């Protein structure tokens, strides 16, 4: 009867919807709790987070989803409630995040140093100079007529923020600086930026973790010219997203993960990472250092650079879990 063809059509529609739903279901993890972590590219590209993820997921029934973006974007994600936790390395931006009320329970996890890397020939002759002086020399050389002498991240990442603060401290006006012909704004992640700097034979500011990996893998030939200076300190923190503001975020999961990163086991993973391959830790654990003051000079540098009002997280930005701050 004519009803038959209509029945066939209805069946077909149901079949289509069913298979789409089944596929979506199959592709998505069913029972596991999900934690969305927005992280800076330097932590992700080096592979540290993969190592952390393996160990963490073995212990906890939480599925870690890392979204690798620049610090600026990670904070934006969090502000919209699209992430549960952020791992970033830009204290000024982090403070803003806390004061806006979106971030709570900030903890410092690890640190390393930025370095100014560049071509072996070092045309601006900055080897072993102080960071601010090095930048000045590069600017002079650039203005002298060298094309493409400095590559900037240009992506509002933590590294970019650091770079900008250095230029400002050296007395340069950022708005005019970025327009000069020798200053290249890459708009890309750390790895990509390193490759561009290498390609142009230019200098750039890089975190040691990413630099070591890329150098070791033979992807770049730039060398470290300025390092280990107070001005180049790079501190990584974890901040949870405020559940009061965004009820749907996985706050407890975020704290669990944060605690893991702060635990001995987590800190051990961080310390071990890269030691075999690169001969040194790419990221240095900070928890024990800060708690027990094992290296006072280093601890002081971190406190000067990355603490707010004498603490890593002022009281008004803490929420539950007081054990985090014993």
């Amino acid at each position, binding site marked *: *009867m*004519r009803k*038959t*063809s209509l029945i066939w059509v209805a069946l077909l529609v149901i079949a289509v919807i069913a298979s789409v739903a089944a596929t979506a279901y199959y592709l998505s993890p069913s029972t596991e709790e999900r934690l969305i972590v927005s992280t800076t590219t330097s932590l992700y590209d080096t592979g540290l987070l993969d190592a952390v993820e393996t160990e963490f997921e073995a212990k906890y029934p939480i599925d870690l989803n890392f979204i690798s973006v620049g610090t600026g974007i990670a904070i934006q994600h969090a502000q919209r409630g699209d992430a549960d936790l952020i791992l970033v390395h830009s204290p000024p931006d982090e403070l803003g995040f806390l004061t806006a009320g979106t971030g709570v329970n900030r903890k410092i996890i690890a640190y390393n140093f930025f370095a100014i890397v560049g071509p072996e020939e070092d045309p601006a002759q900055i080897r072993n100079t102080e960071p601010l002086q090095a930048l000045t020399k590069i600017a002079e050389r650039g203005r002298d007529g060298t094309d493409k002498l400095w590559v900037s991240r240009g992506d509002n990442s933590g590294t970019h923020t650091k770079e900008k603060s250095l230029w400002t401290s050296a007395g340069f006006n950022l708005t005019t600086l970025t327009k000069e012909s020798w200053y290249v704004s890459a708009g890309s992640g750390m790895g990509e930026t390193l490759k561009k700097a290498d390609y142009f034979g230019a200098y750039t500011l890089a975190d040691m973790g990413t630099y070591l990996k890329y150098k070791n893998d033979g992807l770049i030939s730039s060398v470290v010219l300025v390092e280990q200076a107070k001005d180049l300190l790079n501190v990584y923190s974890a901040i949870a997203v405020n559940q009061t503001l965004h009820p749907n975020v996985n706050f407890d999961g975020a704290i669990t993960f944060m605690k893991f990163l702060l635990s001995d086991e987590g800190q051990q993973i961080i310390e071990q990472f890269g030691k075999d391959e690169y001969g040194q830790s790419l990221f240095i654990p900070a928890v024990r250092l800060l708690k027990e003051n094992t290296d006072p000079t280093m601890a002081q540098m971190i406190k000067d650079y990355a603490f707010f009002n004498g603490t890593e997280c002022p009281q008004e930005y803490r929420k539950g879990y007081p054990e985090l701050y014993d």
Partner: protein
Amino acid sequence: MKTIMEFENISKAYGDVAALKQVNLQIFEGEVFSLLGPNGSGKTTLLRIMAGIETLTSGEMHFDGAKVDESNINDVRLKTTMVFQKTALFSTSVYKNIAYGLRLRGHSKKEIDQKIKEVLKTVKLEGYEKRSAKKLSGGEQQRVALARALALDTQVLLLDEPTANVDPKNVSIIEDALSWVNKENKTTMVIATHNMFQAETLTNRIALLLGGRIAQIGTPQEILRGPSINLASFARLENVFSGNSKILQEGTSVIEVDDEVEIEAALRKAGKVTVFVRPEDIILSKKTIASSARNGFKGKIVEISDFGPVVKLRVNARKEFVVQITKRSFVEMQLNVGSTVFLTFKASSVHLV
């Protein structure tokens, strides 16, 4: 006799164009009814309305006693079926084409197989089930379309110019099939055609359609043999002239068709008349001829139509005449469009309509 379809004052317009104007018609069950008329006279439109695939602009249609409207139009579609002038086939096998309508009606596979075999036999296409319908010849395709329609055993079968674009061999197969079906199943058939001779052989009644109106309804005898101005203007679209006739002393009349054209006819009639001349009665020459014929005109050939053994020429001699000559003569005389020619015909060749 039971009326199976009835049309009361129906009209159909497509936008500004009126295709059918105030048509009144009754179709009786079991008859073969022809709609005769030139292209554009509304035959196809009327047929489509009967098939339930065209709506009325005004008027009422009754099918099997019930008034037809949106609620029961599907009923009409199931009880009638139409074979289109331009063969329409689905892009599948012959079998699937024919099975389509049967499946809609819920027949079992066995019944369908059986039926298809039957109808393919009727149209002399046995064994064609698996063939790709669109790959058949024109005539075979039309026969498949016919078989498809016959398979449905509808009360009414509608055919739009069923043999118009078909070669002679297929024409006779189709006509035999139609004849057989009408006799065997008493299927009512409505056939639209512009071919007078087909109308004559197959049908019980004819309706003459001109310009969207029914000019006349009757038996083939009445329509085709009797005098009729309508028939003339349809059937002999060529060489029909109207004018004022004056009787002459010698027993002929002269008809003033317009200012410059006068035709002398061997008849006695005064007043307004309509006359015609058969194309084959006109003699064509390249020079004037002196003869007993009363009518002579000079003109130029404006159109040539090749019909194989005969050639029809349209000649502009202030009025347009259609002249028919043999192919042989045409070739020998070396005529072209634009050639100046002379037309001659006798007064006795002029007939009253």
